[in-house]
């Protein structure tokens, strides 16, 4: 299997795009991350991540509508490509296998 690079922040972004299904554009992504985590994402970091993900082929984008609020500038919507889905899937499995490998004495399972 090839090495699918996915940084920690990039993973967060691509997952958020998945959550926001069809309405994922930079502002909504930022709001979503801000609300789900305790951190405030900067515009610069987000756009850089989005660009890199698009360059890697995990995301694709299309132009959306423009509004008065945005001073006439269009939105750019993102959605996950097939490759992107495969990569996060793989990422999740890899992590789960790591989780499973941790001895129970170290990390006792908790059930809510």
């Amino acid at each position, binding site marked *: 299997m090839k090495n699918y690079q996915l940084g920690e922040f990039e993973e967060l972004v691509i997952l958020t795009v998945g959550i926001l299904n069809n309405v994922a554009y930079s502002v909504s992504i930022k709001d979503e991350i801000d609300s789900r985590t305790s951190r405030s994402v900067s515009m610069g970091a987000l*756009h850089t991540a989005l660009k890199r993900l698009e360059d890697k082929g995990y995301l694709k984008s299309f132009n959306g509508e423009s509004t008065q609020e945005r*001073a006439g500038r269009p939105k750019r919507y993102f959605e996950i490509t097939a490759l992107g889905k495969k990569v996060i899937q793989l990422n999740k499995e890899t992590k789960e296998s790591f989780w499973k490998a941790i001895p129970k004495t170290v990390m006792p399972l908790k059930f809510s």
Partner: protein
Amino acid sequence: MRESNTPPKLFLQFLRWFCHPQMLDFIEGDLHEFYQRRLRNYGKRRADILFVIDVILLLRPGIIKPADGNHRVSSYGMYKSYFKVGWRSLLRDKGYSFINIGGLALGIAIAMLIGLWVYDELSFNRQHEHFNDLAVVMQHNTVDGEIDTYSSQSYQLGSTLRSNYDNLFRRVVMATFATNSILGNSDKIFGATGMFMESEGPELLSLQMIRGHRDGLINVSSLMLSESVANNLFGTTDVVGRSVRIDDREDLQVVGVFRDIPSTSDFKGELGFVGPLQLVVNRGGRNFGWVNNWLQVFVQVEENLDMQQVSAAIGKVKLNQVSESDKRFKPELFLHPMSRWHLYSEFKNGVNAGGRIDFVWLFAIIGGFILLLACINFMNLCTARAQKRSKEVGVRKVIGSRRGQIITQFLIESLLIVTISFILSMLIVQTLLPWFNELSGKSLTIHWNSLLFWITLSSSIILISFIAGSYPSFHFSAFNPVKVLKGTWSIGRHASLPRKALVIIQFTVSIILIIGTVVVYQQIQFAKDRPLGYNLNGLLTIPMKTPEIKKNYNSLRNELLSSGKFSEVSTSETTATNMWWSDWGFQWRGKDPNMQDMLYRGAVDYEFGESIGWKIKAGRDFSRDFVTDSTALILNEAAVKYMGFESPIGEIVQGYGKNYTVIGVVEDMVTQSLYEPNKQTIFLIDPFGQANYINVRIAAQASTTEALFLLNSICAKYNPNTPFEYTFADSEFAEKFSFEARTGKLVGIFSTLAISISCLGLFGLAAFVAEQRTKEIGIRKVMGASVASVWSMLSRDFAILVIISCAIAIPFGYYLMGRWLASYTYRTPMPWWIFAATGIGALLIALLTVSYQAIKAALINPVRALRAE
């Protein structure tokens, strides 16, 4: 307030500047969205701060645009296409391109030649180290109310300036005028021109020493040679210490060899050698009074002194020294700086009257006009083709070209054509240069490796392409695309108006130049035809330089005459073609006491008149039969008039301490300038032993070659240590109008070129007019028009333009040439036929040019013309 609802402009600008253009839109949109939200939630201040922070955080590698934007790439393609389209349109109309480029190249070549000439004139003398502080002392003298100006000075002046005005001058150097001397060593002898000067001379004139030092001229038996003279004499320049015999009198030691004086110096050809002035003084025969002017005084003004002030300070030096009776000439000294020697050498009545600078201006103006004519051609041909290219401009505009882009396109096309023309013109200049050098008497070269040359060249390419291309490009770019594409657009009546004005300018300039040429030639011919008063044919002069030839003169003369190849031989102080010696202090009956009695003197011998062939009007010639003829005088007609004699024969004239009796009157002779009235001249049997020339007349039936051969051998016999030198009087005479002849020739060539460039343009213009009117001509022919009527219809327009040009050019030319002629006292009238002939000539040439196209158009089959669409 709307204003306050927008984010900080400065940072928005900053973002736009650095952000990658592909991402800018979305990012800006996001920022706006956040800003609006924050504005609502936190207020303006906070929103602004957060906006700034956001922008600063955006400044990161993934978002900043790459250093080389894609801007340049796309412009490059556009320019490339401009060149391609320009090149294709050149190729499509080969005849047109040929006329356009050829005319322009010719014009540029001429302008370039003139430019080289002007540059050469302006850079004269500049290589001298003391160019800025060097001057020659000149003097004004008032004779009979007119101020005479010359540079010869007395021997006294040098030491006076040196001792009394020490604070003004760094160096004062007296030098003889350039003289011809005979140099010889054991192997060779030949004549060379050089100067005798004081020991500081070589430093003052900044001679470039190859051997020895500039201060080597201290000893009276020292001598410096120029490189070429040293090579001629010894075959090498390593000659310091060798001995040279000068004029078969003194043996001198070579102390230095200097580089040949460059052709851009006024000393060119005058410094083959430099000898000590003391040598000339020691030879004797010179007077040392304040009024005996026989040498020149060069000075180097102290640094940081103003030449004008120094000039004023020495003004009265001579006046204070001369005797009471000589004060009436009011001698006034002044400095003529080296920077003005070449271009401002003439003085009229005490005022500097220019000189060559007039010709520099004249040629510069002619060059400028020829270039202008070529540029006009270019503009005219381009705009005449407007119809052909109007569709292209229309399409470009519809697709989205801005006006500026169309202007750029046509300027680039003009740049293309001008560059090709420049390359072509450099080839023309390179081939014409030897011929032009011969014509102008210069040695010009293209300064290929001078930076200045390339800068001038490239800036003129840009300038000319802008000037020539400006009108067409603004004309083209103003087309209305809708009209052009619908085909309802046509050039119209007014569009051709500027073009007509340009043709008129072309022909006006050309006609003025032709009038100028004709008048210059007229003046030269007029001067040549002036009655000389003596006979130049078969007359030649031999300079007498050594004591030997003076001693042997009688035997030489006898042998020449007995050979039968020579009809007469005589001696004289000056040659018949140039009698410059003037004297005053004469007394005669009825002389006006206020008169300054300046008379030119011909100190001759008994056979002089016979040998030059003068014509006695009254009385008799000198004769050896009369013992009293040693105090006899012959006057010319001008002298009779000047002295106011009714019947001059038998009158007594006192002069040189003797009483002279007038025995004859001789017809006026041209002994000085061809353009001045004949000078009052007296002839007397040489009482001073000053004979410098032998005048030899070859017998009418003898062949010149044989006579010269014989003359050479006889001279060698009586004057063994001197090379045989002689001058034909007619070639010396031709020197008098060589400058005018040269100017006439150059102006003639320029005007021929001007008219041919103008005609070239007319030819192209006529072709386009004929092409435009093909349909009209076809219809006319179908309706029954004859070839002649079509021809006259097409030619009429152009004929009118040429006639208008004549109307402007003739009065203008008359005025200009009248002013030129006014500088000559003896001048040709300007008959009306010159102007009529020039006008008719120009008209004929123009009609011939146009007719080719007109007749071609008139002969075309109307069916073909009408069917073509």
